[in-house]
């Protein structure tokens, strides 16, 4: 008979009756991996981010240089996506456009996250008059249509990329604030918060160490859905000529340029339009996947 020492991790892994230790994030990752659409979206978005980073150092042709190809030139080996009305290489411009879109999407969500999470936590934790003021503010902002507010803000602030990000953030912070407020309201009644209070944790410690980490799942899901909304918004503004100003290539303004020549060269409008749709779709699928993985209350 072979003497056996205490079970090693290898033994445990081999034993189907012993559950593997997982934490919340590992669990979520397992969930997400099973969702093929979300996984494909992750791959697509990673590739897009990579392209956006590469475009800062290298593009196949100079982005702003005109007549690197023939005007309205179609697809070819040397210009895979053809050229636009000024003979600029479309692939190069599309790459930079990816960077602009991601900057708008992520930048907006950073602002929205910073502001929305902060005032959501404050309103939910302290309640009382502070909550009334913040909730009223949220409802007032919900009452006014976002595209119109963004347009007037762009009019007032000017049309740089940073101002567009600010304008979109100002019209879109309410979802995040409302979500965090709701999460905080329900979390603060839980026993572990009572325990933390009883051992003398300060309100700051409770909010930052106990409430925020537990609300992080829904926050990430909300931010993931916020990114495509912001990108779509920038697309609208730029398509109308009120967003990122030429010659900076934004997908929206490229589509608007292409639309002028839609009979002659449909590829100019199709390239940015498809890039935009695929990106939005990927973010939406990823958001769906993350919601199923991170936010069990919403699981269908």
């Amino acid at each position, binding site marked *: 008979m072979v003497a056996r020492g205490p079970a090693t991790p290898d033994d445990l892994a081999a034993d189907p009756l012993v559950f593997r230790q997982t934490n919340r994030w590992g669990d979520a990752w397992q969930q997400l991996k099973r969702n093929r659409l979300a996984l494909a979206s992750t791959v697509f978005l990673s590739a897009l981010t990579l392209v956006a980073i590469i475009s800062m150092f290298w593009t196949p042709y100079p982005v702003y240089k005109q007549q690197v190809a023939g005007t309205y030139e179609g697809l070819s080996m040397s210009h895979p996506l053809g050229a636009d009305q000024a003979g600029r290489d479309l692939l190069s411009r599309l790459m930079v456009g990816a960077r602009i879109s991601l900057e708008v999407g992520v930048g907006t969500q950073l602002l929205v996250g910073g502001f929305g999470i902060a005032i959501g936590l404050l309103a939910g934790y302290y309640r009382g008059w502070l909550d009334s003021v913040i909730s009223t503010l949220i409802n007032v902002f919900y*009452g*006014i*249509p*976002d*595209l*119109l507010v963004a*347009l*007037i803000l762009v*009019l*007032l602030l000017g049309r740089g990329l940073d101002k567009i990000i600010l304008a979109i953030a100002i019209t879109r912070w309410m979802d995040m604030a409302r979500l965090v407020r709701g999460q905080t309201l329900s979390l603060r009644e839980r026993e572990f918060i009572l325990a933390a209070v009883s051992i003398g944790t300060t309100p700051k410690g409770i909010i930052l160490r106990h409430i925020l980490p537990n609300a992080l799942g829904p926050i990430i899901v909300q931010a993931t859905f916020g990114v*495509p909304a912001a990108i*779509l918004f920038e*697309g*609208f503004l730029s*398509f*109308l*000529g*009120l967003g990122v100003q030429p010659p900076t290539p934004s997908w*929206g303004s490229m*589509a*608007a340029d*292409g*639309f002028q020549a*839609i*009979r002659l060269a*449909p590829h100019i*409008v*199709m390239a940015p*339009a*498809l890039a*935009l*749709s695929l990106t*939005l*779709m990927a973010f*939406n*699928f990823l958001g769906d996947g993350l919601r199923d993985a991170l936010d069990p209350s919403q699981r269908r």
Partner: protein
Amino acid sequence: MLTPGTLVYLGQRLALLAFTAIAVSSLVFLGVHQLPGNAFLSDRRIDPNALAALLHHYRLDLPLLEQYRLFVVGILHGDLGESLVNRGVEITPLLLREATVSAEVGAAALVVTIGLGMLLGVVAAVRHNTVVDYLATTTSVVGFSMPNFVIASLLVVVFAVWLYNATSGAFYYELGWHGTYGNVGQIPVPAFALGFPYASIVARLTRASMLDVIRQDYVRTARAKGLPERLVITRHALRNALVPVVSVLGPLVVGIITGSVVIENIFGIPGLGKEFVTSILNRDYNIVIGIFTVYAVLIGLANLLVDMLYTVIDPRIRY
């Protein structure tokens, strides 16, 4: 349905609406007057005397507070002032005419949104977990992820460019609007582009609530007493499945109104949305202020109408 309580509620809502409209236009008025430059300064070089005369004509030489007072008095009389760029053009009748054009396209888009959305949703729910369901669900995810100008571009490429080439110009969608109200053949394409993204939302909601309702006991009862399946779905299930859909109608209508800003510019439809962008680009601030006011009223009315619709769909709700 029209109880005294409802009338009081209606009165309150209308008062709130008037207040919102004045608040919105005041904010825009004050904001716009902080902007550097005006419609005249950005133009060619202009004779100082002529400029002074223009500023006087538009009362822009008065102190801001006095200008504001005159502006509010004007609004209360339904007078939004005069265009800065096209002198002599009164803004109120101009915007009212353009609002009817927008309403025409918007109503058509709403038909697409509700009709197509409910159709996709019901079909997906009735054929739950079949190929039809997957097709309908995928269609709605795709529609939801495509900006309306992308859908519009695709439609134009297919119906205006490809169809033109395929039929050698015999049959195609003609880009460019005829007259003020276009003609019947021109409305479907912009209406579809405007309504389809929201149809996807309606489809998702209808499917979810239909799946919920179809399992209820009273639907089984309806089947048990021998009603044809078509009647069970349309008379019994759909009516209750509609409640959640009606609850998003308000945001949907607002979405269609803001979406029309983009669609009208693409298809050259002379409605409010096109005027809005044109006036911003022209710095015709009087029109910008006017359009914001009209939008605030339209959106308020749309929301009010939807809230009233609740009571029709769900008689348990009273105001």
